[in-house]
């Protein structure tokens, strides 16, 4: 059969996605670190917020902090309940306060509901349950998610005991180095690299309810990249061994560009570091 095909397909119109995610072209919260990132309900953690703007790091001493006590409803598809965005009792103020999670957090946010007729919360992919901690600064709202040490449910007694013995609360990963050039020529492409020690990628037992077993699982680390100018090849990169790299292209105009790298581990741990470079010379 003789056939002929004609397809006139104009280039599909790709929408304008706005500013790239890495570009700090306005005041932004880039990370909130809690130390420790995981604890028992009612325990305290120290927080620090990374606030940045187009001119570099910003002072976060005016930040106000609050603990959210409302769980996410099934009718909501976000990461925190809408009540957490409303009026909350202020728990602390400043750039680096200490806050305690709710004593009943494993009931509200975890697998231990107030009654056996109630639905327990689902964990995340690492078996974690979290209570949101809100920070408001410079008109911005951000949340940290404090990981809760809650008991296993749906597990046999033997597995529960084994879990209690083997599970170690998460620790924040540590950025060992954040390297890049001190100065670059306009338009130059350079590599930025973040590295961390082996201990940052912790091994933890992950409960598999279907098979009633604990599987040793290594944390996955990835890096979010931010810059006040130029362009990043990728907004977020995964680990390549004990480091992760990204390619940054300098802007055509001279000036100082700030970089931030935020290292995430899969259980909610965070570390961040800052770097700056002079475009067009030192």
């Amino acid at each position, binding site marked *: *059969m003789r056939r002929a095909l004609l397809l006139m397909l104009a280039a599909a119109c790709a929408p304008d996605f706005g500013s790239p995610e890495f570009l700090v072209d306005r005041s932004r919260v880039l990370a909130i670190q809690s130390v420790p990132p995981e604890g028992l309900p009612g325990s305290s953690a120290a927080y620090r917020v990374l606030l940045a703007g187009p001119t570099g790091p910003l002072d976060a001493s005016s930040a106000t902090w609050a603990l959210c006590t409302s769980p996410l409803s099934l009718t909501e*598809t976000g990461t925190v309940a809408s009540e957490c965005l409303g009026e909350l009792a202020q728990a602390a103020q400043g750039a680096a306060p200490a806050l305690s999670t709710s004593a009943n957090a494993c009931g509200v946010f975890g697998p231990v509901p107030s009654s056996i*007729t109630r639905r327990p919360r689902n964990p995340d992919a690492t078996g974690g349950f979290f209570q949101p901690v809100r920070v408001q600064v410079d008109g911005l709202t951000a949340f940290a998610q404090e990981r809760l040490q809650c008991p296993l449910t749906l597990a046999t007694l033997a597995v529960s005991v084994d879990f209690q013995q083997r599970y170690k609360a998460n620790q924040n990963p540590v950025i060992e180095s954040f390297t890049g050039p001190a100065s670059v020529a306009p338009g130059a492409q350079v590599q930025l690299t973040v590295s961390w020690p082996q201990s940052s990628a912790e091994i933890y037992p992950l409960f598999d309810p279907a098979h009633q077993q604990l599987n040793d699982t290594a944390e996955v680390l990835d890096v979010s990249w931010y810059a006040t100018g130029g362009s990043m090849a990728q907004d977020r990169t995964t680990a390549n061994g004990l480091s992760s790299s990204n390619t940054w292209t300098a802007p055509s105009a001279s000036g100082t560009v700030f970089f931030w790298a935020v290292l995430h581990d899969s259980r909610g741990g965070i570390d961040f570091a800052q770097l700056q470079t002079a475009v067009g010379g030192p």
Partner: protein
Amino acid sequence: MKALAPLLVALAASAAMAQEEPGLEASIEADRKKEPAQTSLRGSEAKDLAGAHGDAVVAAQMLPGVAREPAGTGQLVVWGAAPNETRLLIDGIEVPALYHGGGLRSVVPSELVRRLELAPAAFGAQWGRALGGVLEVEMSAPDVAASRLAVDPLDAHASINASLGDGQLFGGFRYSLVDRIVGPALSETAKELFPLPRYWDGQLVGTIPLRSGEKLELLFFGSSDSGTRELNATTSVSRGDSSLSRWGRLGLRYKRTLDEASDVTVVAWAGDDLQSQGSFSGPAFANQTSWAQSAGLRASYRTLFAEGLSLTLGADGLFTHTHLRRAGSLTTPAREGDVTFFGQPPGVDVTSDDWTVQQGDFALYAQGDLDLGRFTVTPGLRLDFAATDTSAIVPTSVGSAPQGSSQLEPFVEPRLQIAFRATDRLRIFAAGGLHHQAAAPADLSAAFGAPTLGSSSAGHFTAGGSYRVARPLTVEATGFLRLESDLATRSDLPTPVLAQAFVQQGTGKSYGVQIVARWQGGGPLSGFVSALISRSERQDAPTVATRLFDFDQPVALTAAASYKWDRNLLGARVRYASGFPRTPVIDSFFDSQQGREEPIFGAQNSVRLPAFVALDLTAARSFELGDGRSLRVYLEVENATAHENAEDFIYDSSFTTRNIIQGLPPLALLGLELVL
């Protein structure tokens, strides 16, 4: 709107001409003997409509009462009903979908389509298990033995129709080309937004004549769709989705005509479905797979019970065994009523379930057609028994055997249709009835849903009239009201009851007016103009405010016309449709753990996408090649005016910029069909 004027004028002008051309065929017609407001479209005419790509069943998407579907979904929103509330049938056999991914192509080749029948609501007692409407594709193998080869940028299709003794055998197969032909022309971003489908389908239809007036048909059709995509090249964190849908049906259809007013029809079938879909974004994921085996039996006996009274008695049964596995986020995929944004990654919560559902539905029905002179009264009664058995009533605990649940729901569903022939030109009709639909097996999970969900119910009411302006031109107006109750919605409790992630407290209301002007003559010009003005609302719980239905489309206008002469065809279609509601993002916050901005939504469904406007054109010509062979060439231009239609809103990563995802650019398709 201005674009509609020339078509209306053309239709009106040719109305007078066609009065002098007896025997003209209708391209779209009302069939009052079956259902009020039912629309029928002949397959031979449907495939010639502009925008149908030469596919008769695709033309169902432009039938009066059908909202303009969301691009790339192939979903049918009929009179404000959710797509899964409308039953899809091929020759009385229930099928999960009529379209391949994207809705560009149907699963039934046009040469098999005798007629499309859409009953948008208030249908008779012979149909049930649907809160919305019923769309049936009536098939019949071509009369003439022939082989066909067809190809266009979407796919290639081959079929053979042969005579075997006194019987006939049709076999066909289609395979998609669109991903290979169009794919290379698309940018990576475009492919992320509109994943190109990969599909195939096959059909086998055998006709075995028995005694005089008796016929047995063997039907087999199968379909497969698959697609995968990786999203967001700006991050090395993997993100994407995939889907797979495969299903097949094997059926027998027996019909015996006893006399002019009596016949017996039996349809028995078995089917197998595999549906799988998944999405992932870094560690967050959601996937679900279901395997379903189903069997159905329909039998009806129609006879003239007494002078002026014909009676139809029937039985309608369906049994389905479904095995489902699901893992990942509870709120992914989103369902109707969820507040989401385009491209939203799966939720971070994880759970899993593996469950089975048996559902049996058996109904006995009776329907009479009482001729009372100017009045025709059609009372009907459907006695329906719906049984559901689920494998686990609560999530399985350690060391405990799963405890299942069973429920039997009887339904008495009265139906009534009344037609009044006021004059030779004016008919007035009204109809109403009660309907139900069983819970979807996917909703009956102890972990993700609620195993004890019962059926949802609806009351349908329609009233209207048709007026034959001149012999070829009929205008019809139909008002409708559909009230739905016991809809499954997500529990809004801060801490839901165990195994009750869904509760049956949703209600819905859809109402509106449909106006259709039909060219009922045929001849060189045929066409219709339809307007659907409607509103569809849902209330997810008694304590929350009523919201717009996600597929609410207040205005949907379609004008389609075809002009045929000799072996040539010219056609045009103009569409205007209100944009679907969307929930705006009004602000955002930063989630440090996810390392991304999260949206803060405004009032649910409080804004709309811009209205959709498109002009589609088609032209075709057939060439006789001798010895009964012919070649048909068609050219279709979609969105000929290059209108920048919005298919959805899209936000940047900070949710500070909202843009639109544009639909199809001007698209020209050249297709060939060779008949040997």
